[in-house]
């Protein structure tokens, strides 16, 4: 009971502080502090509820327990991180986004391809990739290569569709201007279409960044060496080590958010000119 009251009190306090901060003029500090306080509040409420309702740690461990496990298992977490994130997700992300970008330029160049490939692409993009995972594991083996392949498949179409859309985004007038200069295809691509496509390209990159990690982890459920975040999660559930499972999830969330944030930062630098970046 005390714990529940504690949870509720923390919630009220956190909300009150945030409401107060949000009413202040926006600065870099408040913009950072508000979501952090919100997150801390959530965690405190979670802690309170787990203790208050006496939820079994096998169903939902308390944040304090997860934190302790996290500290105690950094070596394992690091090993899994390298296997899944660096080898699986990152390589697949780079490969998938890279090829999608090049294919997008090709598709954009040939109208025939655009009209033929995009509808088919939309169909293929609707494939639930979860189903592709066992197949790709079968094709590419157990190690990180198959994880990278799953990631490639997952990120390819969002990236392709966004880039193609972006390449078509320049206005008629902007393109006419290039014609008045008698600029050729490559000149127009380089000086107009690619810069104009950047907001879309980054949109694709951001979507792909959350997909990449999920893809790599999910693929590990269908066969893996004895390391990796997906491996650890599924094995640990079997061993009822839920605290380790959640520690892995924390790593995934932190890495995923960091990845997303990093790309958003680059986006800010590259597409500084776009109205959406100027409030």
């Amino acid at each position, binding site marked *: 009971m005390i714990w529940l009251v504690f949870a509720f009190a923390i919630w009220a306090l956190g909300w009150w502080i945030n409401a107060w901060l949000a009413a202040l003029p926006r600065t870099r500090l408040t913009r950072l502090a508000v979501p952090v306080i919100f997150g801390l509040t959530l965690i405190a409420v979670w802690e309170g509820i787990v203790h208050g309702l006496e939820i079994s740690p096998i169903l939902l461990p308390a944040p304090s327990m997860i934190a302790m496990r996290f500290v105690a298992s950094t070596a394992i977490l690091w090993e899994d991180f390298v296997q899944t994130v660096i080898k699986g997700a990152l390589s697949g992300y780079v490969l998938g986004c890279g090829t999608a970008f090049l294919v997008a330029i090709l598709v954009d160049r040939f109208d025939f391809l655009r009209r033929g490939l995009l509808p088919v692409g939309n169909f293929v993009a609707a494939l639930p990739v979860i189903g592709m995972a066992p197949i790709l594991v079968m094709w590419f083996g157990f190690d990180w290569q198959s994880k990278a392949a799953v990631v490639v498949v997952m990120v390819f179409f969002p990236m392709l569709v966004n880039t193609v859309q972006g390449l078509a985004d320049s206005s008629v007038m902007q393109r006419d201007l290039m014609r008045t200069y*008698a600029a050729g295809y490559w000149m127009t691509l380089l000086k107009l279409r690619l810069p104009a496509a950047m907001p879309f390209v980054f949109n694709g990159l951001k979507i792909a960044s959350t997909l990449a990690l999920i893809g790599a982890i999910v693929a590990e459920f269908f066969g893996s060496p004895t390391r990796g975040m997906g491996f650890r999660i599924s094995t640990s559930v079997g061993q009822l080590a839920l605290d380790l499972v959640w520690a892995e999830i924390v790593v995934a969330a932190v890495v995923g958010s960091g990845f997303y944030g990093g790309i958003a930062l680059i986006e800010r630098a590259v597409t500084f*000119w776009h109205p959406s970046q100027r409030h």
Partner: protein
Amino acid sequence: MSVISAQHLDLTFQTNDGPVHALRDVSLNIEKGEFVSFIGPSGCGKTTFLRCMADLEHPTGGQITVNGVSAAEARKARAYGYVFQAAGLYPWRTIGGNIRLPLEIMGYSKSDMDARVERVLELVELAGFERKFPWQLSGGMQQRASIARALSFDADILLMDEPFGALDEIVRDHLNEQLLKLWARTEKTIAFVTHSIPEAVYLSTKIVVMSPRPGRITDIIDSPLPKERPLDIRDTPAFLEVAHRVREGLRAGHSHE
């Protein structure tokens, strides 16, 4: 030989509402060094006609030659500079970068580019704004940058589509004066679209009045005004006389009333 010569130009847009006759049997000759204004109600085909000259639109009938060759060849030879109705600067390039754009495409040397950018920026009184991005400038300044961009390379023909539409009267007067000076100095041939009767009369050696549905030329007025034109010329009877004739021409072709 005329710099621009249109013979019986027809242009019909196919739309899902049926065909739109944007131009019908339009014939016009523009000689070297002329300053020709196009005036007419909204939708009468002024922009379309200018775009035909620039090979941005393809007539469905008739003939158009620029510098004695087809419009397409003239475009490929980079015979003209075009100023669009809206400024149309690339937001990811600075003002300087925008002006440099055609020069890069046409392969000017680095030092030549720098000199030209500086010169045209001074011409439109934007010196010191080279490093700014378009959205950091007012609409009028952007419009001037876009004019500078069209002037930066050596084209003898200047096609301008309502370049001063977004500007207030005083700035507009000023730029009108500047444009006249530039034209007198460089002997360019200029085709100029406007909505403003005083502007058309003040600037032009020839005023083409158009009317819509289908777009055609209803009147061509040769201006009796001298080449030297102080702003006060707008209060002279000769000026008002021409303005009156333009207004009558416009009113006749106007669908309203």
